[in-house]
């Protein structure tokens, strides 16, 4: 299981939790499991989310590998100037 930290405004769509556990080995599996377990998160996932994996921000890397002890933080998809 991987502990995934959500940002605060997603809490209402994840039964009031900010940390949810999912069975996943990649970023894509995190997103798929989240969308299955918490359908309310699906619109945000479709709009775009990034992921910080052990402190490094990945914007769209589906196949980034996740270990059970990894720190996984979901972030809005971001752009620069």
């Amino acid at each position, binding site marked *: 299981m991987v502990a995934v930290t959500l940002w*605060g*405004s997603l*809490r209402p769509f994840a039964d009031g939790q900010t940390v949810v556990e999912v069975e996943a080995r990649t970023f894509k599996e995190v997103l798929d499991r989240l969308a299955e377990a918490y359908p309310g998160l699906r619109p945000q996932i479709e709009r775009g989310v990034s992921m910080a994996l052990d402190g490094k921000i990945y*914007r769209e890397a589906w196949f980034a590998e996740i270990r059970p002890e990894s720190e996984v933080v979901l972030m*809005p998809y971001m752009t620069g*100037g």
Partner: protein
Amino acid sequence: MAFDTEPKRDFKVVGRRVARPDGIDKVTGRALYGADMSAPGMLMGAILRSPHAHAEIVSIDVTAAVALDGVKAVVTGADFADAMDAATADVRDNCLARGKVLYDGHAVAAVAAASGAIARAALDLIKVEYRVLPSVTDVDLAMRADAPVVQAGRAVEVVPVGLSENVTDHCEFGHGDPEAGFAAADLVIDRSFTTAATHQGYIEPHACLASMGPDGKADLWCTTQGQWAVRTACSAILGMRASQLRVTASEIGGGFGGKTTVFIEPVALALSRKAGRPVKIVMSRTEVFRATGPTVASSIDVKIGMTKEGRITAGTATLRYTGGAFPCGTVAMGAQAAFAAYDLAAVRTFGWNALTNRPKEAAYRAPGAPQAIYAVESVVDELCQKLALDPLEVRLLNAAREGTRSSYGPTFEAIGLEATLEAAKAHPHYAAPLAAGQGRGLSCGFWFNFGGNTSVSLTINTDGTVGITEGNPDIGGSRAAISQMAAEELGIPYEQVRTVIADTSSLGHNDVTDGSRVTFAVGLAVIKAARDAIAKMCARVARIWGIDPEAVEWVDGAARPTGPNAGTFPPMTLAEIAALSFKTGGPIAGHHESNADGAGVSFGVHLVDVEVDRETGATKVLRYTVFQDAGKAVQPDYVEGQMQGGAVQGIGWALNEEYIHDAEGHLLNPGFLDYRVPVASDLPPIEAVILEIPNPGHPYGVRGVGETPIVPPLAAIANAVSRAAGVRLTALPMSPPRVLKALTAQG
């Protein structure tokens, strides 16, 4: 790709202040920018814009315009495709309005004619009937339940019900228990701030030349930060297949985020499609201000608690941003960045975006961060003043470092904030004496930095020179840095490498030049492409020598035998291998395509001295020093240039730049006369101090540089003004009337 730690690199080309490859073209006037291209049979396009901030378009009658001699095509929003995703539909509706005009200057129709003068005359003949609606440009007013609704039904699901329909987005970040933190503080300060919308202010107006044939194939030349993004947007808006549209990026006369989207390009294509001839559109400066993207305007509340020793116990912020008349997600970046410089047990930020009758926001250098960090750094400074603490020591005491849980969630890897603060502390500027009426300000700044989709191709020419094809418009000297990294990796002189920027038909996709990504991500790709070419060259040499490919290594631009069984062969240089390439299997090239991650966040610290004229409210910037962790500085001149240029844009934002609207929502200052960007005589020298803390996510340790420097100036100058004049301003810009009013109120 991780930082190359072994063997420790002794750079030969990277880090040198080489001459940029486009230098001579740009100092002789030969370089071709957006408006510098023309085509046989070219028509000139012009765009009719709304005189109202908010109105329903009842009807558009183009009959008289079409009938004018020399007019070849007239288009409206009806000439664009209908089906596309919501974000692209917003871009489309910003290029030519549908149903309603949403801000003063919103495009309504366009004409292509034999000359610019005829096209402009034709605009006067287009009859648009408007039903004027109430408008709102202020973000706080727009969030009120009784505000005029700019667009209905645009809120995402996270927005609570019952608010104004203008509220489109909401976000919350943070951890810990702020209330407990405030209870543990010796002093809590709660302040509200506003920042005006500012424009990127690139000197080159948007310009493009579109040519579409009757077979539907089209070419587009334009000034842009990303030709693939232009192709994606335009092909969707025109209902074309992407393969049928080739976009070539001209030299670009500044962008700063403002040229990451399209405004006139789909219009020129639609006109060309209708007229069957090439169409050129060049915006006037007035159009640039009225109808291209400024940054968000904001209203921000910040509350911070501190112990009398200077430890921050908790921080909260509520950010209300408006990205203009279309939904905008910039507030999420502000809400994440606000407290990024601090190691906090309790932090919470809330972001809201509201629609207003302003132009559609476009990204501007570290979008969303300057406003949020201005508010936070102002309150931290005020706490230092009230608690009689040294503002730099307080930052050091609370600085985020490796292992800190960031305010936006993830735990920081190796970051350079402490080193940057220590450099500022040790610099003579920090201890220099100040005269009466002068004050010194300090602020930290932060930006995420991004990587992104990148394709690079590298060819080994038969004469031993190297060509690099990359896809990111070069705004500030990136071709030099890319060439340097290729030369470094290949072990050849910089002068033997030429980097060109490809059109969309010549290379795989590249994300726009944004997010401080180019030197990092394109550099990473070019290093990998070079390694790909090196592997191929080593394999060829192995065949020539009749040994295993693993027994050939690449050292200083040549293949050498290595290992016990390799034999003794004299090294073969890149030029020698290249000359034999036709005999050894054909042309040699390397390439790399990836979506790069690991850009590595960036911190900066700015120190500024100002003097305030107490009788006029004028602020003079006396001395300015920028400290920033740049990772490895590939071409230090251009790293310094980013730091200096970003600082000066921030100075303009702090002191004078603002979008000024009247009560009906008309923009009152759409020109460089009254939208006051800094001029040379406003400024002192800007000293740039580069710190090189290697980014673990790049083989040479390169980190993004370009965006962070615009973040600290807003608060640094506000803090300096506060210390010089004894008044704390909470609204940007700190224009002389505002400063004088504050001084007068102080007595």
